[in-house]
């Protein structure tokens, strides 16, 4: 490869790996850990790719919740899915809404145990959280997973059904 021998090139490989490690440390140090389960976390709703299945807009949203979503995650590998984590006025997450495809739809690790047909290794559904689901087109399922009172959750869910728009 070179007249100067492979040892120097090993140094180049090590230097490249060190740079990569430095970037990883910088990113995870400043930006926090990446979402689990192959989900990509993005800052804006506009950053969600357009081919992730039906998109819903809430037509009812209680004043106790904050919009825009605090968490926006999506994935393609292992079944397309997108999820929005909505926080309550106090700041903690109170509701996840999204759509996922396939017989074992993927969800953010925090609520993965709340889904029917959840992975056996998934963390259990947090106490007090409940799930609303409805099949959508093209093998997708719509989800609302929340710790809000069931009647309020039902109104959000029905509002979402009315606001459904195919993408």
């Amino acid at each position, binding site marked *: 490869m*070179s007249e100067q021998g492979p040892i120097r090139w090993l140094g180049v490989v090590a230097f490249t790996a060190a740079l990569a490690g430095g970037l*990883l440390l910088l990113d995870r140090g400043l*930006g926090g850990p990446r979402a689990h389960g192959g989900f990509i976390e993005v800052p804006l709703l506009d950053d969600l790719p357009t081919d992730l299945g039906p998109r819903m807009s809430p037509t009812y949203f209680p004043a106790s919740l904050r919009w825009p979503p605090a968490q926006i995650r999506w994935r393609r590998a292992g079944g397309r899915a997108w999820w929005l984590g909505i926080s309550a006025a106090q700041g903690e997450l109170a509701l996840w809404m999204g759509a996922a495809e396939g017989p074992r739809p993927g969800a953010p690790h925090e609520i993965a145990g709340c889904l029917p047909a959840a992975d056996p290794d998934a963390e259990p559904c947090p106490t007090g959280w409940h799930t609303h689901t409805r099949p959508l087109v093209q093998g997708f399922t719509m989800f609302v997973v929340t710790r809000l009172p069931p009647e309020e959750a039902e109104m959000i869910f029905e509002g979402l059904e009315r606001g459904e728009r195919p993408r």
Partner: protein
Amino acid sequence: MFVLLVANVVHGLLALVWIAGVQRLLAPRSAIWATHTLALGLAVPVLAGLWGLLSPALGAEMGELTLLRVGPALEAARVAAPPVAPLAWTLLGGTVILFVAQELLRAVLGVRRWQRAERVPDPALAALAERLVAEFRRQGLYGRRQRAPGVAALDLDRPVALLAGLHAPTVLISRGLVARLDADQLEGVLAHELAHAALGGNRRLLMLWLLRALQAHSPAALVLFRSLTARLELACDALAARVTGKPAALASALMAVHRAQPGAAADAANAARTTAARADRKLLETRVRALLDARPDAATPGPAAVLFGAVLLALLLGGVR
């Protein structure tokens, strides 16, 4: 769009750091080596940007393997310090203005200046070029199928020597320059221009310039391209010195050409004040010193080394998106 532009700048800066490290680790390396590494620094960020654009559509997210998430980092910076976005736009816009004023206009005006001059066949120059080309071929510096550039004199009093043309390149040397140089110096200058053809000529330079133009907003691309053009001159000097065996004659020719430039005396006076004049003088000093002090090194990297470097840099930059 904003994230894409900033990601490209980050790619370019990372490429600069990587190149600096690699050059230190593999030192000493010839100027030809440096031009190849710097060319990678210009090309790989463009490929990494394309990969960032296309990979989601291809269903190939890097997931956990992403090293640096530029979008979220930018968004966090925007929230923490709102002036970040306007400042970044100012930096990107300012770099585009620098590109237009210092590179685009300079290139266009520079070509126009000599294009008006008449090209005259010069049998003596042609014979000298033929002998030099044979030596380039003997040393394996021209490919077997590579056509040697033509040679012509320019009916111009100003000292000009350049390789012109993309498909049928021609070395043009002004009569004013021929009159100012002795035989050895002229041989050195002609060999230098023929070396440009050996290193890819204007086609390669145009490709690199297009890569630079695609990244006109990037300060890193500015540094990479200017370093590359400077190193290219050093590389051609090294090849010319190797072919002629007379580095001192080429060094003295460079000094003679510099002294004969219109306004050279004023430039010398202004050199401490004008950035461009200072850079030109610095490059001249470096070239003369490289020719006189050290044995010019014209070693060329093999394709495997270039490919290996490209893969390493692509793996690094592909993780930044």
